[in-house]
């Protein structure tokens, strides 16, 4: 028998007898013969652990050796240092082999961790209510769009063209099939000018969904924007890289009604883009319109503090087609990682991570500026990434590969734009290596 299957032949015989059938096949006589598989599935034969590990190690070697390459790639997924206790603690199997906490009395661990996470997200975003997470930043943004359309009973969503292509793509798909409109506001020098935005705020606009820092790494100046929107009974949704929120104005301080973003930066590895976690927070006023699981604090029969899933009247298992969303599974284990990360780092820790990421980017931008053949595209406040223009971006990528450097993402092949990102994982030496290599390949 297979190691994951505890049955002996004697067990099987005993069970069949109790059921009153002769063979296991007899348990499937209710299936129409025409629907039965005629031949076995064409799948590989079972392999031992040793062989599987060897095979996967080899497959891993078909990727670049991550330890020996220098990457300045971001644009939505970021490499940060992860305290060793994060992977260690989320590997406790009472956490990772549990289901959604439907039975609160034996799920207090998961529930309390989510409650602590909700508190931290409220603090970081400056808003009053947070949910237990979405699949990622972009799906959180799409759900925020639905939430805004539902709350305002309007059908148009405004976005700046500075939103990341991943987020635009997901939004486009979600809105299209719900027959909602998506309108893009053009940018100038890598940010949206609020004078231009003004012309787009009509009475069908449910919300303006803006990312800051935006896809180009620039901070959007949102002075007066929430006032403009609220005067029109529209909502403001702000998407952020949450690591930036210890330095820069919070969504709450900008007057946002809903805040979303991707929490991967908090203790989660890049994982080729997933799983991560999408966070969402909103004002108290919108609380009952929010999708997703929410954990609340309450008391047990003895007056002892405990936690439960709450406000479930919004959810699919109660409301079915009238629910605020269909979301069920979220990204609880990634949330746990984020909670442990934030507990370990504290404000001083994430401030230091954000500060070093920011200063590194400023240093890099400063030193690339002087190189012949590089143009810094925008003159804006940045967080940890920025855009440069070169003569031939493809050529630059290829040449730097010889140094085992990936300098960034080509975000526009025609204009030869490169998005360069740094975080605290880069030491000064790494930044200087990129500068020197760039000089060499552009010479």
């Amino acid at each position, binding site marked *: 028998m297979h190691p994951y299957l*505890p*049955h002996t032949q004697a067990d099987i015989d005993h069970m069949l007898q109790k059921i009153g059938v002769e063979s296991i096949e007899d348990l499937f006589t209710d299936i129409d013969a*025409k629907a039965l*598989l005629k031949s076995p*599935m064409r*799948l590989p034969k079972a392999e031992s652990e040793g062989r599987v590990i060897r095979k996967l*190690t080899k497959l*891993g*070697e078909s990727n670049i050796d991550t*330890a020996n390459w220098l990457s300045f790639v971001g644009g939505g*997924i970021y490499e940060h240092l992860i305290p060793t206790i994060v992977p260690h603690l989320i590997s406790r199997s*009472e*956490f990772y082999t549990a*289901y*959604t906490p439907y*039975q609160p009395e034996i799920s*207090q*661990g998961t529930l*309390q961790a989510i*409650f*602590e996470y909700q508190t931290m997200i409220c603090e970081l975003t400056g808003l009053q*209510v947070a949910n237990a997470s979405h*699949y990622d930043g972009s*799906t959180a943004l799409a759900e925020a769009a639905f939430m805004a359309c539902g709350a305002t009973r309007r059908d148009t969503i405004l976005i700046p063209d500075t939103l990341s292509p991943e987020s635009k793509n*997901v939004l486009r*798909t979600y809105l299209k099939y*719900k*027959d909602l409109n998506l309108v893009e506001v053009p940018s100038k020098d890598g940010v949206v000018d609020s004078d231009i935005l003004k012309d787009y705020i009509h009475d069908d606009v449910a919300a303006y969904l803006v990312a800051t820092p935006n896809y180009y790494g620039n901070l959007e100046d949102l002075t007066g924007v929430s006032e403009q929107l609220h005067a029109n009974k529209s909502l403001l949704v702000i998407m952020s890289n949450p690591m930036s929120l210890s330095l820069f*104005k*919070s969504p709450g301080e900008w007057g946002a009604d809903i805040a979303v973003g991707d929490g991967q930066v908090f203790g989660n590895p*890049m994982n*080729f883009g*997933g*799983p991560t976690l999408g966070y969402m927070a909103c004002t*108290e006023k919108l609380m009952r319109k929010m999708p997703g699981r929410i954990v609340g604090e309450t008391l047990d*029969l003895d007056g*002892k503090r405990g936690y439960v899933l709450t*406000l*479930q*009247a919004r959810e*699919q298992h*109660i*409301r*079915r*087609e009238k629910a605020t969303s*269909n979301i069920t*599974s*979220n*990204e*609880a284990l990634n949330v746990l990682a984020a909670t442990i990360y934030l*507990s*370990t*780092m*504290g*404000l*001083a*820790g994430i401030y230091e991570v954000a500060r070093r990421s920011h*200063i590194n980017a400023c*240093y890099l931008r400063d030193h690339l500026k002087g190189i012949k053949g590089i143009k810094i595209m925008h003159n804006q406040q940045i967080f940890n990434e920025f855009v440069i223009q070169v003569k031939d971006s493809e050529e630059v990528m290829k040449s730097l590969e010889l140094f085992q450097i990936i300098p960034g*993402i080509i975000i526009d092949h025609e204009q030869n734009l490169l998005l360069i990102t740094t975080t605290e994982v880069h030491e000064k030496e790494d930044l200087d290596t990129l500068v020197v290599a760039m000089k060499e390949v552009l010479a």
Partner: protein
Amino acid sequence: MQKNIYEISKEGRRGYYFDTYDLEDYSKSFDIPDKFRREEAPRLPEVSENYVVRHFTKLSNRNYGVDTGMYPLGSCTMKYNPKINEVVAAMPNFSHTHPSWREKHVQGNMKIINELQGMLSELTGMPGISLQPAAGSHGELTGLMIMKQYLIDQGDVHKKNIIIPDSAHGTNPASVAMAGFIAKEVKSNAEGTIDMDALSQLIDENTAGLMLTNPNTLGLFEKDILEITKRIHDVGGLVYCDGANMNANMGITRPLEMGFDIVHLNLHKTLSTPHGGGGPGSGPVGVVSSLKDYLPGPIVKASDEDFYTFEMPAKSIGHVKNYFGNFGVYLRAYVYFLTMGGEGLKLASQLAVLNANYMKACLKEAYKVPYKALCKHEFVLAGLKEPGDVSTLDVAKRLIDYKVHPPTIYFPLIVEQCLMIEPTESESLETLDDYINILLKIAKEAKEQPELLHNAPTTASVRRLDEVSVARNPVLSYRFNGEEQ
């Protein structure tokens, strides 16, 4: 009382150490302009490393997982989560890869995605697979979007109705609404399967399709499945398979053979990836040939030279998630395929069905069995035969006192006092017998000492919690110094 992380925080403590920053001098020339600077600092806990470890270890002790014991949540397939899956997913050459690196730098990842697409294709019979959706309900939404785009392209924009059985998962109607369709409920018959007369009355030219779980949420195989799928096809509709219950079917029957057009799988159910206390999941979608071009992308194609590329299908509905979906979950499912093999998967489904039928046979003396037919991987009970003033909730809470996880309760909605039990193939005869004996003992207690059930649980970290007042006056984040929200 279990303290929360803020209550063990003290100003000045730290859990992480930084090396000296080489750009300290350089940084002095930088300042954030006032208009961008954060005004009010977020309050985060300050805890030393060892106390963070203790805090979360204590929390883990207040949890229950598959590794703790039997976890027979119906429709959730809480099977064993193999440890080799975790080891592989943590390998740095996978976990440290960035999704925006170039294809040639991540050929290992892409080969895995490509092969997993092929394996899931074989498991479902569906020639087209996209791994992008992040969960079962996300897969449903994706499948419905594919349906909608297909119908639009056929000129069938008037087709808006999706038929759903009254026994369906709540996500089905919620997904229908999110995709801009209208849900129409069809009732089940006395045998627990779709009432064919009621179905006929609902089907008309406005029928866009039907969503069905098979075996259904009562654990029963829809005996008329071929006729059901045919009737929907006859009016130009499509049939969606909610694959949450695929653990009954592996190697025995497939959505394609049943006549479905679209299916999602829950890798965190059928394919052994852990549920993580509520996620991450993964909900790949499979489709028949005529719908392949509509899949969300990118998906991975293999070239002749064993080089893998990302491609968007020709008429793709677009992206439903960032990048390529939950790659970390794919790795685990891929390893599960390798360690189980095709024959192992079939055996797993057979034993899952054996375990469920065995439990059902043993429990019928004390619990109401609303549907007598053979069950598949799960079954439902309609509460106690002699309940007195004891409810299914009481039974569930009493199970906790016996240190096992209760089944799904009060679902499906069409069964009164429902207990929905899915033991999975991972449980041994002895474990099943223990669980059965506990349930029989509880049935006896219900008659003789009902207060034991009413008061349960008494041995968990908390007793029953007041869910009503919190929904009315929600406390959803820590109240610093007792402040109001």
